[in-house]
């Protein structure tokens, strides 16, 4: 069984600064995928970034990057140059094979102007 844990219920960052959101997971599978989703007040879950477990290189999408530590089963999200529009709930998720995607409990990010 997969479990995903986000230990930070809330985080806050000053506009233009950098923030890191933590996520740990537990799986016995060797081939799995990890994701970060953003959920703004509109409620629609938006894919931010994904990482294949077999890839050593950390994924990057513009201002968003991950620190994937496979041995430690850690998958943190770094947001650089934070913008007001980044304020949202962020969910870490994992899936393997064709199975269900498991989500963490989420981290609420506040961006201060």
């Amino acid at each position, binding site marked *: 069984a997969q479990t*995903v844990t986000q230990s930070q219920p809330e985080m806050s960052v000053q506009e233009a600064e950098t923030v890191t959101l933590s996520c740990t997971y537990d799986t016995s599978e060797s081939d799995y995928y990890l994701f970060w*989703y953003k959920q703004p007040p509109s409620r629609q*879950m*938006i*894919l931010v970034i*994904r990482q*294949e477990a077999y890839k050593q290189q950390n994924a990057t999408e513009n201002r968003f990057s991950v620190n994937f530590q496979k041995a430690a089963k850690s998958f943190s999200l770094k947001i650089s140059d934070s913008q007001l529009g980044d304020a949202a709930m962020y969910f870490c998720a994992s899936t393997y094979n064709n199975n*269900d*995607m498991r989500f963490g*409990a989420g981290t609420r990010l506040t961006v201060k102007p």
Partner: protein
Amino acid sequence: EAGVAQSPRYKIIEKRQSVAFWCNPISGHATLYWYQQILGQGPKLLIQFQNNGVVDDSQLPKDRFSAERLKGVDSTLKIQPAKLEDSAVYLCASSLNWDRRIYGYTFGSGTRLTVV
């Protein structure tokens, strides 16, 4: 391309009443999911369809919840009778069968259900 459409956006009902939610996935997406997201928690899978067949409904409370996907396109999720603890956002998502691991899922904006 059009996104995943869901309706209604909000619904308030009394306990023991029934309610239905509707989802129209992205055209061509074979796989459809219903998730329940209770306030303060991450989404939890209720049911997964592949075309019009059920792949996984292990977490669906079958005594009160039911879902169908006729013709492998639109889907409806029904709750009858509703309980207070069913208050949540119900999210629908879809994916092409082969790319769910690469691109994740495409989600709709959900239906916020309040049971009073």
